[in-house]
């Protein structure tokens, strides 16, 4: 038996597959990973501190920069905490519009996830397909909010503005088209032998560990725990909508990937229902008046929603002034990333790339 010497390999912060500025310090034995340490914080912008000097409305655009891939859900998570704090209710049509954009946002996120995951596995085609279709959804968002990434659309009291003319038709056409696009990805990727070789049986995380590490979202459902905040602790109008919670019990990365594919289809289904409701319902999308300087009474609220990456929570404490006293963000990427060393122990460095891709983090969300 030959003896090998362990060495340290530094991956990142500037590296093709760390999806941003994350640094791994790997203890390696040849190509096998013995131990992983992560060095975070290169993108730390102190959002929680910034919040303390902004008014409640001013902080909404900052939430876009958290997980800059799915800004809509970030907007909503913060907004919901503020609304809970101040006891604001939003017209039902507004809630349906929020659900519609959030679910489309989830599809955008999962498309980007699929693309980057396979880009890390050196398949450069899926990301192009995904960007083609993501573009169409971003066009819709642009017509609503004027921005493609940082929307600032959902805000306390409702949304920025009612839907523009022709929005319903455009959205309906897109919702009709997207299933065939998702089928196209599935045809290209799901049964590919090499992809199965690369993804099956690695990055195992059993349900007990997954719960214990605080892993949430598709990562948790890939470990066979059927939990979705939209279903189990419903917010907005999700309790009126019909959708399935996609769960698989294989606990490996392939299962987690398939869950995302299924979730895209479920999100389309939800979006259709929401679109029908927007068309059917009459009335405004926002509360009639929402002041710029807004002083909620003393108190605190914690809202958590099912963001595309997992459980996104905002804990807001008010001291009765126009600034939040404290905003604490529970970001899904941060908590999901914590389980990574467990998942990659003993795997090859090529697997690190795959497992890291499947965790689906956004560094803006990790470092805040």
């Amino acid at each position, binding site marked *: 038996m030959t003896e090998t010497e362990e060495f340290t390999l530094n991956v990142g912060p500037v590296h093709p597959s760390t999806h941003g500025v994350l640094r791994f310090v790997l203890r390696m034995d040849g190509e096998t990973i013995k131990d992983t340490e992560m060095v975070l914080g290169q993108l730390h912008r102190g959002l929680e501190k910034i919040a303390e000097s902004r008014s409640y409305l001013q902080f909404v655009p900052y939430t876009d920069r958290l997980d800059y891939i799915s800004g809509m859900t970030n907007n909503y998570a913060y907004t919901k905490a503020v609304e809970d704090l101040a006891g604001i209710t939003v017209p039902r049509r507004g809630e349906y519009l929020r659900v519609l954009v959030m679910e489309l946002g989830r599809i955008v996120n999962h498309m980007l996830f699929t693309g980057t995951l396979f880009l890390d596995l050196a398949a450069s085609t899926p990301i192009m397909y995904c960007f083609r279709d993501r573009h169409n959804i971003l066009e819709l968002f642009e017509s609503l909010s004027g921005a493609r990434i940082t929307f600032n659309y959902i805000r306390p009291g409702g949304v920025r503005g009612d839907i523009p003319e022709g929005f319903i038709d455009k959205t309906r056409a897109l919702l009709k088209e997207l299933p065939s696009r998702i089928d196209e990805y599935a045809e290209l990727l799901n049964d590919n032998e090499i992809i199965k070789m*690369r993804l099956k049986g690695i990055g195992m995380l059993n349900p007990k560990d997954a719960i214990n590490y605080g892993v949430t979202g598709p990562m948790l459902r890939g470990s066979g725990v059927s939990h979705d905040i939209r279903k189990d602790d419903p917010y907005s109008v999700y309790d009126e909508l019909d959708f399935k919670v996609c769960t698989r019990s294989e606990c490996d990365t392939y299962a987690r990937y398939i869950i995302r594919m299924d979730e895209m289809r479920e999100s389309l289904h939800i979006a259709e229902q929401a679109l029908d409701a927007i068309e059917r319902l009459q009335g405004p999308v926002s509360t009639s008046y929402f002041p710029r300087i807004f002083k909620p009474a003393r108190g605190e609220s914690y809202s958590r929603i099912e963001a595309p990456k997992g459980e996104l929570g905002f804990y807001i404490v008010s001291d009765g002034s126009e600034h939040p006293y404290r905003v604490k963000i529970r970001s899904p990427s941060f908590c999901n990333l914590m389980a990574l060393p467990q998942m990659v122990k003993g795997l090859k460095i090529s697997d690190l790339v795959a497992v890291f891709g499947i965790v689906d983090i956004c560094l803006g969300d990790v470092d805040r």
Partner: protein
Amino acid sequence: MTQTIYDNIVYLLSLVGISFGDSIVPKIIIVLLIAVLLLVGVALMVMFFTWMERKVLGHVQVRRGPMITGPHGLLQPIVDGIKLLTKEDITPKRADKWLYFIAPLIVFVPSILVFIPMPFGQGAIVSDLPVGILYIMAISAISPVGILVAGWASDNKYALLGSLRAVAQDISYEIPMVLTVIGVVLITGSLSMQDIVLAQGEKTWFVFLQPLGFIIFLIAAIAEMSRIPFDLHESESEFVAGFFTEYSGMKFAFFFLAEYAHLFGISAIMATLYFGGWQGPLIPGIPVVIMSIGWFTIKVLAIVFFTIWLRGTVPRVRVDQILSIGWKVMIPLALLNLFITGLLVAGGVL
């Protein structure tokens, strides 16, 4: 005796009334001319491949590829070349200077040398070595040395790990490749590339006589060319750029050229061994030399197209999977192929 490029040039010169008896100087000039011709030819092909790769991959991925420089971006490779040549050439502080300098050459030179016994067309061969295919296999086995040297000399962990991967892969796939080539040689009874082409003219393309051998050769060839799904040489999502992580400017350009020259070389070998080389139906009125070179080019381009198509379709295989496919599947199959071919040849069937 086969006609070579040299013979043809002498013949052409004699047609216009120039002949030079036994004097050595014109001969050397002609030989140098052929060397330059070969280099330029390979360089042009490489440039075309880079353009083709971008265009084909672009269209596979629902985009258009380069469109700005020249018609359909045809001048893109030239612009790329200028960019590469004018970039700063950085040598890391702690690198082994001499090895760092020489490694691109060790990789690049063999990738050009393999073209010497390559029959590009009827009468278009630099030198019809009697041991042609053996020579090619031997020469192309040198480049892993250069890769290892490059990885070691860079003093970079990514480069070292990448080069070790690359060498492991090259060595494991060289064996099945050579074993399948023996099958072809058994049928032909000669190691000369020209003879292999001619034998396919008499019988049929060896891809039909050696289907299993061809599949093994194809997979091994993709691994040798270090193309996706077997592009461990680069593995950019893990090791940034593999063994040439630290290289820049001209030295990087050499690796780049070598990679595509390798792609050309192995596609040419595949076309020669399995698709009848330059053989193809002739159109009356067009000189045989041009027709045969045309057929050869078409076949090579078809193979290159296939590899690009493959790149657009599949991801990379993991390192241990590549090696286990190589040793546990490819080599036994190659031996089986050799055994069957041997039996058939001995029985007089082939």
